[in-house]
């Protein structure tokens, strides 16, 4: 079964995303910060990571770079607040496969996650 890791420092967003994808029969893990995300990626080997760019402590780009040090395959979708072109370019160069802007359209979130997790 495919496994999705949701990384966001907002509890409400983690809760919502988890229940949203659980209803779509996707197995979900959540991480509240970069450290947790890295550990979970190592131990649980998710197929896809939904990674928020803006987080306190370690931001999404740093997390992605760290993950790439030991896992070059896992697919990553970046979640961003405002248009951050530079950050997105960097994410792309680190092998993120897609990004989605907040506020997002739920149908698109569903579509993009289902597509990438195949």
């Amino acid at each position, binding site marked *: 079964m495919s496994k999705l890791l949701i990384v966001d420092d*907002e509890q*409400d*967003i983690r*809760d*919502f995303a988890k*229940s*949203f994808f659980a209803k779509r029969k996707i197995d979900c893990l959540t991480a509240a910060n970069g450290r947790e995300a890295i550990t979970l990626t190592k131990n649980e080997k998710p197929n896809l990571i939904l990674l928020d760019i803006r987080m306190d402590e370690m931001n999404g780009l740093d997390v992605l770079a760290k993950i790439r040090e030991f896992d070059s395959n896992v697919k990553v979708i970046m979640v961003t607040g405002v248009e951050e072109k530079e950050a997105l370019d960097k994410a792309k160069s680190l092998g993120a496969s897609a990004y989605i802007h*907040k*506020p*997002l*359209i*739920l*149908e698109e979130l*569903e579509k993009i996650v289902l597509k990438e997790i195949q």
Partner: protein
Amino acid sequence: MIDYKKELESASRSMILIHEPAILIKMIVRMIVRKVNVKHAAILLYNKEKNSYVLTISRGETGLKIPPGFARVDPNSALIRFFTTERNKLLNSENGALVYGEISNLIWKESVLKNGEDMQGLLHDVSEQMQMFEAQVCIPSYFQNNLLGILLLGEKNSGEKFDHEELDFFSALASDVAMAIRNAQLFEDLRNQLDHNRDLFIHTTIALAAAIEAKDLYTRGHTERVTKLSLGIAGRLILDRAFPVPDNFLENLQIASLLHDIGKIGIPEMILNKIEKLTPEEIQIIHEHPSKGVTILQPIKELSECIKGVKYHHERYDGMGYPEKLKGEEIPLIASIISVADSYDAMTTDRPYRKAFSSKEAIAEIERNIGKQFHPKIAVALIELYKEGKI
């Protein structure tokens, strides 16, 4: 009679008066969840900047709870089109609500069938969107035919359907909310308009002030510095509660400082920029600049307070100034402040006939002239600013 009705109604009425639609919306959603006992409730609100209906509030103990600002709905999506296209609106019940369970009936309505697959497809997409939000009911909220937002209600915890009376009530509530939002927006627009006019006015004033500086080579930047200094002194006086300060005082002071030398436009350049000692006649002409300033500004009746600053900024505390030899407290506060700021700046910049003083020398000079040229409290305020390293 629905028991929560009165409570919600009176709350929404009073909220229309204050300009806080956000609070109103939050309260309504919370109350609906609690009193109507739905699994969750949410509001999609049109956001001009994002050109989207953003999920602003979502609440629910047992149902779907989406973090505010996380999700949005595109204006071109089926749900929005359903509520914005006239012929679609006809499909709904009188109160405008759309009930999930009734969509399948709507699809088979004669008018829908006649409209072909377009309408059926639209309704199908609408039902999928409602599923996405787990909404049982959508209640649109309009202002003058513009869709401002949609109230989404989840299932009731009891599993019962929403009855007509409830839907009517929610619809009325939704239009109250629309009104509150609209009022708040109008209020905001008005405030922006005022700010805009104010900016326009200040910029025009600055342009006028620049006209003086174009003539008087030695006063480049003088107006700006005097304005800054006057406002600094006034800030200090307000802080020390040295004077009762009338409404709009700072604004008037800013304008008056910018325009204090406007009358120099009427003084020949050869006198303004003369290096040699001025003759008594020339001094007389220079002394006319406050009155000339008054003549220039008089037609603008909104500037009456500022004009006092322009007219009297060369009066002296001891009554030896010009043009009217006013004394002490007879001199308007606005003019006394400009006088101190103007003198300090004049001393600390080069003039045709002498080099600039250092700040220290200028402050000493101001101190020596307390009660003579300058109002004591105002001179002290300037000296304090200097000691604190603020000038």
